[in-house]
């Protein structure tokens, strides 16, 4: 598998502050990698370094085979789409003019512009000045410019900010489509639920350091969080259900005919077998693995070795 992005000890310091601390990462072609972290965790710095907008203090990076900032890398930007956080355009220009400007820099024609404006739902507003656009419309225009020229690599910094739920779905539709065509996507987001089902791997940055980078399942294992089992069962059976589920289990929630237990991840299968045996009046059973939010809370706040 070819690495679209490879970094080795990539570090960026601003004076005494370290924005990114020794990032070593390999992103194969066609992967969708989510970059998670609090504000100031180093997500944006990482993207800027990959684009050559800023130089690393230590370490190296290769993007599409070239080192960012070199002449070769400048030419390769034709194959990179970038959506910065809080994207802005010249307010005096119309949406059509702004997108045409960027399209021409990538050697794309008028048809590509019209097509993208249509796809992001800005066809009607294209003739209006960007000054009159809402935040969502600006974000859509930003998205359109990132998609210009069918990029091989997409770097999206908080791409869904300001988008309504319908447009979020449309957005992920675009991303899926590009991903199927082999585009590598790196995106950072605060809205964790929308990432859960869509990413191949999740990289978590904390104070500039990569604290975890794994698939969702891998992160769940690493985090060692218990699995919750929600049962439809008589509440008076709660204690015996907890005993049946295994030694590490405990009751987390009882309400009406719902009993929720928390079980160690390793005991999950045994617990399900015992609970489903039918002796405790269990009518239904749902397994709730730890959500990305819960996993993120673990890695984002405590020291975890990747």
């Amino acid at each position: 598998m070819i690495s679209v992005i490879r970094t080795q000890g990539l570090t960026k310091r601003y004076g005494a502050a370290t924005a990114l601390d020794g990032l070593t990462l390999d992103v194969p072609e066609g992967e969708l990698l989510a970059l998670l972290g609090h504000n100031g965790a180093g997500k944006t710095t990482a993207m800027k370094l990959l684009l050559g907008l800023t130089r690393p203090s230590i370490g190296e990076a290769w993007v599409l085979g070239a080192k960012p900032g070199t002449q070769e890398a400048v030419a390769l930007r034709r194959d990179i789409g970038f959506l910065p956080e809080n994207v802005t355009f010249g307010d005096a220009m119309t949406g059509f003019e702004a997108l045409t400007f960027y399209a021409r820099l990538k050697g794309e024609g008028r048809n590509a512009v019209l097509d993208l404006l249509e796809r992001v739902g800005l066809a009607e507003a294209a003739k209006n000045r960007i000054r009159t656009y809402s935040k969502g419309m600006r974000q859509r225009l930003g998205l359109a410019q990132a998609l210009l020229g069918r990029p091989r690599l997409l770097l999206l910094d908080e791409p869904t900010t300001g988008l309504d739920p319908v447009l979020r779905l449309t957005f992920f539709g675009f991303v899926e489509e590009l991903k199927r065509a082999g585009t590598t996507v790196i995106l950072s987001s605060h809205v964790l639920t929308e990432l859960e089902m869509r990413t191949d791997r999740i990289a978590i940055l904390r104070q500039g350091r990569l604290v975890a980078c794994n698939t969702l399942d891998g992160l769940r294992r690493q985090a060692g969080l218990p699995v919750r089992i929600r049962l439809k069962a008589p509440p008076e059976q709660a204690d015996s259900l907890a005993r049946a589920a295994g030694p590490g289990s405990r009751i987390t929630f009882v309400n009406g005919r719902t009993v929720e237990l928390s079980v160690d991840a390793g005991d999950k299968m045994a617990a399900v077998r015992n609970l489903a045996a039918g002796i405790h009046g269990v009518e239904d059973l749902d397994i709730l693995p730890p959500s990305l939010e819960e996993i993120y809370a673990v890695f984002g706040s405590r020291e975890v070795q990747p």
Partner: protein
Amino acid sequence: MRTTLIIAEKEIREGLRNRWVAAATLLLATLALALAFVGSTPTGEVAAGRLTVTVVSLSSLSIYLLPLIALLLAFDTIVGEAERGTLLLTLAYPVSRGRIIVGKFLGHAAIIAFATVFGFGAAAVAIAAVAAPSAAEWRSFAGLIGSSVLLGWVFLSIAYVISTAVRERSTAAGISIVVWLFLVLLYDMGLLGLLVATGGQGVIGDITPFLLLANPCDAYRLLTLAGFDAAGSLTGLAVATEGMSPASPLAALILWTLAPLTVAWGLFKRREL
């Protein structure tokens, strides 16, 4: 080259859109016309033709105005875009920083050239309608337009250095004002003081022509006024620059355009976002 022109075209388009081009052209035309018809009244009937008188008054005015217009037009070209966030996006495109600087400069240079040619040109056309300027007068007027454009470019170039060197738009604005004050007003006052104090004797007297060339405003003055007799005699500048060929101030202005632009390019290449 193609990307450079795309950038230049965008600057021109924005200049047209935000009325910069219209405002600068109108301002220059109004002043040129006012000087052509009102400004020459006090001189009465002198040996100098109407167009020549206009050249002299226009050049003294341009020394103040064109640098100001150029600085205002370009002081935030990089720092402003960096502050607004549009620079971040443009730099993520397949265009080198050198091309961005050159492209932007070409766009701004075209705006300055357009405003000067059409602004001053309007006055020339109006004068031609009432008086009949000689061929020499026409030449000197064309020279005025050419050197005024060049003066504008010099200050654009200086504005680019300011814009690439600082991190905040307000700092760039402040430095622009200081630069304008120094080069347009204070430098000459200092030089004059020096000449008076030394009586123009010794080293100071010898290097005065070079000190004049070292300031683009003075180089401009030398180029527009000392270049021909009639205007030279109106200003008395000819005395200071006896024996100097017009090529020297022209070379000085060209150098003053290219050198700061090169510095701006170097600064921009190293700038981190």
